[in-house]
């Protein structure tokens, strides 16, 4: 199945070619979780602070469905 992934801020650096505002469309196996996608993209799990699936907060064990829109944010804290 296919899901769309939006990476934000410093997480973009982990995925060559990823661009802010443009979703990555990736193929995943049925039953794949958010954690599976994070690992597949090579993003360090500890750097993901916000997980949103279709605009709703989810945790890393959330099971994805066809067409889901996943947004991953780091914790940006500097000032």
């Amino acid at each position, binding site marked *: 199945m296919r899901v769309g992934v939006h990476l934000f801020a410093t997480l973009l650096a982990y995925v060559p070619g990823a661009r802010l505002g443009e979703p990555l469309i990736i193929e995943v196996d049925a039953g794949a979780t958010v954690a599976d996608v994070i690992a597949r993209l090579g993003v360090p799990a*500890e750097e993901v602070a916000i997980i949103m699936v279709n605009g709703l*907060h989810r945790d890393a064990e959330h099971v994805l469905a066809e067409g889901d829109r996943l947004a991953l944010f780091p914790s940006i804290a*500097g*000032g």
Partner: protein
Amino acid sequence: MSERYDRNLALPGFGAAGQARLAGARVLVVGAGGLGSAILHYLAAAGVGTIGIVEGDTVSESNLQRQVLYTTNDLGRPKAEVARARLLALNPEICVEIAGARLDDNTAPALVGGYDLVVDATDNIPARLALNAACTAAGKPWVHGAVSEYTGQVTTFVPGGPCYCCLYRSPRPQALPPRGILGPVPGAIGAIQATEAIKYLTGLGELLVGRLLVMDFLPARCAVFNYGKDPACSVCGSGQQSGPAS
């Protein structure tokens, strides 16, 4: 007659009424570093009547790369004092208060209580959590900003709307080591925060409520992420006694 605010007064929708609103406003800026330098400068220049500064650090050499309120001659001096003097030199018509040295769970309620609006120029998550809790409890709006490397973000929280913890459900206090930051990035993000503050005070335009503006300066791209109030939010969710009515 003073020409100081001519460019504000000439703006569509701004006028004398808008300028008067700024003059009568009290804004607390928490932090006088990279974000704070820009925020404080633009709020003072715009004529915000009373600006409070929360800052306990002294000026160090590595600050000068991005904290544009300070000069080499200020090294070792308390940032709040230098910032106050610099802002009053820019605009003697306003009042600048050193509100405190540090915002945390203990000091936040008293600090935010004396102001109409708070602008986040902190550099750590515990301070933002304390700010969020205090502002939510007191029904105070605040403008969040944060930066890292080549990236920055801004969003605005108002009473009754989503709060910081609706966005960051389980923020890690400080799990990662500090990263570098390109000098103009906090300047640009701070300027956007100051713009949000002026918009709030004057009632102009649309605020970044429920919208996280993310700017990635390396590829020169930006995006807006829409988010809503989380009913299960531990700070402002339904059933919480400390938050505004949901």
